[in-house]
């Protein structure tokens, strides 16, 4: 891979219609798989600092298990109370059965 695409885990290890937490270059990242597409965001909630990978993925939004704040997994945008701050979303691509991620 060129540029700064970073290899993470196998596509098969990301659960279907669900989320998994991984550590990439020291960053806590949540990887999501929806209809064979992979998305990546920060994994730590900006409100109560819980791990979003312990939360629930529904309609393209991840709901934090602590206080039910919801983020869009494509953009990282905070969609509901009590959130006031977005998380970062990252570009992903799949190659050779692996998920790659770019911090930009």
């Amino acid at each position, binding site marked *: 891979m060129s540029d700064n695409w970073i290899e993470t885990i196998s596509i098969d290890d990301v*659960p279907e219609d*669900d989320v998994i937490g991984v550590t990439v270059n020291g960053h806590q990242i949540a990887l999501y798989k929806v209809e064979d597409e992979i998305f990546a965001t920060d994994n730590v909630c900006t*409100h*109560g600092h*819980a791990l979003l990978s*312990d939360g*629930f993925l529904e309609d393209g939004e991840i*709901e*934090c*298990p*602590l*206080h*039910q*704040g919801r983020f869009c997994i494509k953009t990282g945008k905070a969609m509901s*109370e*009590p959130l*006031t701050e977005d998380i970062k979303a990252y570009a992903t691509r799949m190659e050779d059965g692996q998920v790659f991620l770019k911090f930009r």
Partner: protein
Amino acid sequence: MSHENPIPMTPVWEHEDTSRIPFWAYTDEDIHKQELEKLFYKKHWCYVGLEAEIPQPGDFKRTVIGERSVIMVRHEDNSIYVVENVCAHRGMRFCREKHGHVKSFTCPYHQWNYDLEGKLQGVPFRRGVKQDGKAKGGMPKDFKTSDHGLTKLLVATRGGVVFASFDHDVESFEDFLGPTMLSYFDRMFNGRKLTLLGYNKQRIPGNWKLMQENIKDPYHPGLLHTWFVTFGLWRADNRSELKMDEHFRHAAMISTRGSGGKDTQTTNVSSFKESMQLNDPSFLDVEVEPWWDGPTAVMMTLFPSVILQQQVNSVSTRHIQPNGHGSFDFVWTHFGYEDDTPDMTERRLRQANLFGPAGFVSADDGEVIEFSQQGFEQKPFHRSLAELGGKEIEETDHMVSETLIRGMYAYWRKVMGV
């Protein structure tokens, strides 16, 4: 209404009027519990603080109404909310800080999280915990966060002062004060922004009503407070008035100091330490302020929770916070006004030395309240006397009367049903 009490105590107000006050009014724990319900939690506005204490959105102050812990907080939209400091989940008093700045409130026990209006925002593991791709446990489907907010109080702000009530059917704050008290309230809080100068706090081992009575009793200052008399701040012959609202629950003692000279010939209460002088006379460096509009001292008792003080240049609120029938916390908030010069701020701070737990004057009040309570506990079947100036309840143009105390107890009897 029957308690599991083998010897039911039915307190009877034996005297025909309120010129006698039974000691059980100060010593009976059951009466005290009824007072909290009837005077602090229903049909009354209670003091919570000054807007100046929470200037920024997210600023909060923890305080009490009666014996209930509450939080006064400024919302993002700049309005003020007062919520009860009891978590909707397991009932914990979750807020421990006296003052602070937050985006939301979180109970540390299970991290239930509330917004600044007290609305529940979310609860941990509402949907259970994920194991092997399945959610286990959590709240039932019909759990609604909107059913589980903090108890929200009704709030009234006027002139920078914040009052709240658990009773959402209470009359308006303005009606609660009545026109006479409102005019003195507005004199002191006339729209200028207040500035916070500081606090005094003390715990006084006496019944909370004694503090209200102390500021409805113009008989004692010239006799108990030798400091006042010695240094000429209080004279029994000061021009003065006693005023009340129509229910006799609130009152104002209004007095105007004479020329300031020590012309001793007119007073019955002599300044008996004429030779004594202040080492630092700046304690009494009084500057007449335009907003006084005459009176040099106006002491207001707003029943049941607060005293508003103007004693020359010293202005403060004094918050009465009962804890049991025989004790209350007394919290003084000294303030000033936004247009005060630095000199005036210094002057207000200097004069604040007269007040508070160790004040040149107020130290005396804490002690006599403690010793009064001791007398009541010793013979609860007995009664005290409040007959100075007659047995009637009426406004006066002098200070030699206990009419305000009689008035307060006439109202108290009506509300308490005794």
